[in-house]
């Protein structure tokens, strides 16, 4: 294929898309595998948005699951109380996401990285302790009875298909949002600002405004995804706010590589596989996830997806300097 006619990576993404599209035709879907695929869709969408905030915008936010959970609970509660159909629930999720996102964005614009990280860290725990003590939200059992994508009349196989393609659609929407913010003008500006804030200010870039846009847009998408979770599984439980879940998703994002969409998808797939494959192993699977995360962090500077570039760079570095050169630091 001649270079330059299509954007870079077109072949990769088309192949991936076709594979995902025809996957149900070539494999025999068990319930477990279907659930894994749906979970992949939800996690991938969340991680893409998280990577947008943390990687592209450089904001150390751990609020992703808090926003997803709060939106999920909020939308689910509204849907159950008001007997809303699922599209209205998804919209409600996005709206709650925006509201929570705005609340999160407020300190983000003022606080330095680590301080903000902690504040968002706490938001998750805050949401958890609130939910497990709230009767209307189902205490520790969680909230059930939300409307789902698949109508009851559908056969088991049919509802499985609906859920599979809904999950695929969710990932695609998230990819589009990611690409729009990461590749376009916004992404370039954010990367410039991340490199040097004074420089960006010098250029007259309204860093604050752009960050606000990223947080709000990603939060809307996260809220939407949170509501989708309910539409997939019919309910939501406080596990979404647990430290382990947060860590697992974070591990997915960083193992694959926070800097690119394919890295995020790769890491999500890899760790979800470990997580689901060794479900019976209990603590061991989290140990495995942690070890993978640690090793990848120690070895690579930007996740598995960044490894080829890192190796290229190292080769280039050793090639261009005099052989006797000894790198200090």
């Amino acid at each position, binding site marked *: 294929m001649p270079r330059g006619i299509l954007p870079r990576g077109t072949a990769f993404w088309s192949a991936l898309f076709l594979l995902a599209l025809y996957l149900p035709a070539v494999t025999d879907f068990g319930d477990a595998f279907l659930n894994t695929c749906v979970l992949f869709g939800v996690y991938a969408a969340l991680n893409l948005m998280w990577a947008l905030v943390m990687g592209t915008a450089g904001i150390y936010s751990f609020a992703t699951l808090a926003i997803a959970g709060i939106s999920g609970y909020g939308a689910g509660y509204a849907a159950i109380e008001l007997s809303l159909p699922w599209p209205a629930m998804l919209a409600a999720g996005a709206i709650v996401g925006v509201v929570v996102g705005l609340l999160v964005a407020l300190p983000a614009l003022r606080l330095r990285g680590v301080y903000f990280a902690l504040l968002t860290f706490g938001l998750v725990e805050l949401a958890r302790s609130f939910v497990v003590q709230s009767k209307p939200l189902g205490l520790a059992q969680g909230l059930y009875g939300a409307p789902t994508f698949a109508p009851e009349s559908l056969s088991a196989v049919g509802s499985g298909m609906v859920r599979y393609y809904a999950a695929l659609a969710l990932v695609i929407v998230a990819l589009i949002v990611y690409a729009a913010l990461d590749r376009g003008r916004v992404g370039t500006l954010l990367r410039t600002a991340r490199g040097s804030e004074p420089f960006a200010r010098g250029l007259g870039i309204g860093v604050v405004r752009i960050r606000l846009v990223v947080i709000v847009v990603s939060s809307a998408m996260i809220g939407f995804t949170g509501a989708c979770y309910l539409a997939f599984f019919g309910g939501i439980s406080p596990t979404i706010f647990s430290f382990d879940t947060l860590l697992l998703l974070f591990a997915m994002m960083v193992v694959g590589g926070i800097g690119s969409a394919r890295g995020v998808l790769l890491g999500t797939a890899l760790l979800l596989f470990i997580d689901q494959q060794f479900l019976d192993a209990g603590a061991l699977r989290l140990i495995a996830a942690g070890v993978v995360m640690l090793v990848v962090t120690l070895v690579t500077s930007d996740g598995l997806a960044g490894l080829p570039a890192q190796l290229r760079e190292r080769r280039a570095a050793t090639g*261009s*300097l*005099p052989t*006797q*050169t*000894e*790198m*200090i*630091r």
Partner: protein
Amino acid sequence: MSGLVLRGVGAGYGPMRVLEEIDLEVAVGERVGLVGLNGHGKTTLLRAVMGMAGWCDGERSWRGRSIARTAPHELARRGLILMPQGDAVFPGLSVRDNLESGAYLPAAWRRRAARRRRVLDLFPKLVPHLDQPAGTLSGGERRMLSVGRGLMADGELYLVDEPSLGLAPGIATGLVRALMSLELENGAMVIAEQNRSLLGGVDRIVRLHAGRIAEELPAAAAAVAEGR
């Protein structure tokens, strides 16, 4: 006995090469002035000796032992004292703590009280500010503090980077005179300085140009060149 020996030293930052093929020997007891225009490698040379340039190659040794692969804090332990350019003080610490930090290594720490008296005799202007954060000092006082901190240690080789930069002439002269009055029994000094008229006390002057040594002059000749 050989003092500082540099052979074929190159240094730079990332892909940029600042120094090339520097050969320089400074004998024990000797004071060498380093002159040259801005950006021609004076600071990089001093930092390269300390292992603090971005990267550095070539042979470097002090009193017969290689210093090429030694970490900066280990070099400090061996008596290499870099007095960096600019306001190299710890702004949040008091003037007293700044001075004492210069005597951080155990041998010097035991004698820190006597050292501090000696430094304060040299720079009496610091006395009234001892308990105030170094960040609140004036530029000249900060430079005195930075030099004073260097004098608190068991120094052997002093690497002084542009002590007069940005200072009023009177203060600069006093500062350089204090440095020149230092006993160098087992040590040596390399002092980078734009203003050659301050280098009256050195034994030799080395001029850097475009990252190489352009000429070496005995101090007297340098003074003549200055008067031209």
